[in-house]
């Protein structure tokens, strides 16, 4: 079970509150978590990563275990603490705009 926390605007868009819990098969990676997230909440497609290229949108960051994972390979396994459900995977809107 992977715990995911969305930024406020995407919570509103997906009509959720609090954490999202996702079943991710195999060895969870950023890509597999985002695949599962978009499968469960199709309205989030295109808001976190580009629909065509799969690239993370420029002002989106991925944090977990007090680390910035944004520039890790999307196919790199997530930290053990996230896989174990002890720490959430945070999707964050970058600080921008003053």
């Amino acid at each position, binding site marked *: 079970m992977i715990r995911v926390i969305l930024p406020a605007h995407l919570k509103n*868009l997906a009509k959720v509150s609090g954490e999202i819990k996702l079943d991710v098969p195999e060895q969870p990676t950023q890509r597999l978590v985002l695949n599962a997230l978009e499968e469960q909440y199709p309205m989030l497609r*295109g*808001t*976190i990563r580009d*629909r065509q290229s799969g690239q993370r949108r420029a002002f989106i960051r991925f944090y977990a275990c007090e680390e910035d994972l944004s520039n890790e390979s999307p196919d790199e396994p997530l930290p053990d603490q996230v896989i174990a459900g002890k720490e959430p995977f945070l999707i964050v809107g970058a600080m921008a705009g003053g």
Partner: protein
Amino acid sequence: MTGVRLLVGTRKGAFILTADGQRRDWQVDGPHFGGWEIYHVNGSPADPNRLWASQSSGWFGQVVQRSDDGGKSWEPVGNDFAYEGEVGEHLWYDGTPRPWEFKRIWHFEPSLDDPDTVYAGAEDAALYRSTDGGKTWNELIGLRTHESGPRWQPGAGGMCLHTIILDPVNRDRIFVAISAAGAFRSDDAGDTWLPINRGLRSGQIPDEDAEVGHCVHRLAMHPSRPDTLFMQKHWDVMRTDDAGGNWREISGNLPTDFGFPIAVHAHEPETVFVVPIKSDSEHYVHDGKLRVYRSRTGGDEWEALTNGLPQSNCYVNVLRDAMAVDRLEPCGIYFGTSGGQVYGSADGGDSWTAIVRDLPPVLSVEVQALP
């Protein structure tokens, strides 16, 4: 008619303003999608409760929202706006080639008779159509791949397709306008396109009367005269009476002919409204006075409409999609400003009141006459 509904898009959400046919007392509902830029909200002529909203942000990209109950509730629908085939290149501000890159939807134009069909104008310029209620979007590729496409260039606001007019008589005819490429017409439901810019002169481009490259800000048509179009260009107010075959300038006695919106009276095809802006480097109204100008002669002769509008220390702008007319009697006219005011006139422009004063900067205003 039982009333009117204004659909207002702002920098920080959408607002829905409603009134009865008297148009004196207004209810303000919103913000919907608070914090997001809402470039446009528009309603279906075939089903007034079917609304479309373009919701976007620099963080999260483009979302399309649809309402089937007049804006009481909304559901996100498809947002996959792909450029079909080879993406190609247009000119960047510095004159170098740059690949087309989708940024947002500027404008929705619902079909005149099918609630599930809607057209969407994009930045970077492209025209999309959905025929399944917004689930999927298909590009009308003949426009972007027109041979002139590599010569199109963005205006200051981006290379946006901001105007879509569906001809109510010749149903295969569509007009669009792009900043800064110009106006285009299709006579085959969007398969092929013809630049219709003859007669435009733009001092900001090397060849003043080039086939494309003109910064057209807005087109307007009266449905009873589909061959007559009015245009607010970057500078110059223009008209054509042969569906864009030739344009002539009708700026006449306007204090400045720079501006963004242009609209035609609902019942008088030769009555036209513009909001002159001082210049392209200042982007606020002339002399600190907010004045709508009305021509009852199809252009050339203009009168200032000031009753109820601020006539000192006013420095707002009115954007291209932020003026609309209703079909009630007498005709109502509405516009929104960069200062967050939405003004309305229920008497054809003779007098104005502020419906609401302190919204976020207004990007778009549409009006629906409710049955």
